């Protein structure tokens, strides 16, 4: 149990800092995991800390909405590095992000989509315009049903 747990924990905590730096496009940001109980870690908790660019240590609870979103995405991709799933589905994760963070997150996902499928629901054109293809959904009044249109963006790329 200890070995299993630690192999997961080690891999995730080694990768979270570089992923967070990459998403925030800033080497001054830091993210790390600390074990509350070193002997039997699975009995206690794991503290997650993320320090946004050009800030210093502060309790996770005091981060702003947008800062928490970026930290959460870094954690998710770090967990993925240990237990990779073939795809991600993200539903309006950009809701609390300012324009700068939307661009950072969209760029990161575009890069990651080389090796894993990312399906992203978004209302922001600065996000979804980076995708390779779009599914547009509308409510068809006549049939009282959702209907879809598919658009391959790769035809429009310069």
């Amino acid at each position, binding site marked *: 149990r200890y070995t299993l*747990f630690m192999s*997961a924990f080690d891999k995730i905590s080694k990768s979270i800092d570089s992923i967070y730096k990459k998403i925030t496009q800033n080497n001054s940001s830091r993210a790390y995991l600390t074990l509350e109980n070193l002997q039997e870690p699975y009995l206690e908790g794991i503290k997650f800390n993320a320090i946004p660019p050009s800030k210093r240590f502060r309790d996770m609870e005091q981060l702003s909405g947008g800062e928490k979103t970026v930290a959460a995405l870094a954690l998710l991709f770090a967990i993925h590095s240990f*237990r990779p*799933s*073939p795809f991600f589905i993200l539903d309006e994760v950009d809701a609390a992000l300012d324009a700068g963070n939307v661009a950072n997150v969209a760029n990161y996902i575009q890069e990651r989509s080389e090796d894993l499928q990312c399906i992203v629901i978004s209302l922001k054109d600065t996000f979804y315009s980076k*995708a390779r293809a779009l599914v547009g959904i509308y409510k068809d009044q006549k049939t009282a*049903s959702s209907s879809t249109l598919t658009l391959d963006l790769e035809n429009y790329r310069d």
Partner: protein
Amino acid sequence: GYIEQLEVENFKSYRDRQIIGPFKKFQSIIGPNGAGKSNLMDAISFVLGVKTSQLRGSTLADLIYRPDGQQLDPNASCSIKLIWFNEETREDTVFQRRIVQKQGKATSEYLIDAETVKKEEYVDALKNIGVLVKARNFLVFQGEVEAIASQTPKELTAMIETIA
């Protein structure tokens, strides 16, 4: 591999049979409020075996298409097919889950390439392609992203244990 196409039939706001796709490696879903974007994510989560309470429904029957303001037709059923493309073997696998009603009770059926299988076999087949539904660390439902960063240390340990 990756999700190549979906076939949605009478699921939530999607009436009749609709084929959605092909999906690419970076795929976006867009549309106005209330159009059915989250319902499409629910459709993918449903075919992977995610439980109904996570899909904004209290019973299986809630997931079947129902015109606004009407009661559910006791004979109605719904089905989702997920076409999975394996990049190495260049072959498709069709994962399907459907809901049928019998004497007012709704139950799920699981099929792989049109053959009915037990849920355990279905879940194993998903594991083989790298999809561990129990961990769900690859699905972020609407409004839940911030909560991932605010988990208590104990919750984080539990999350790591499920995937260890």
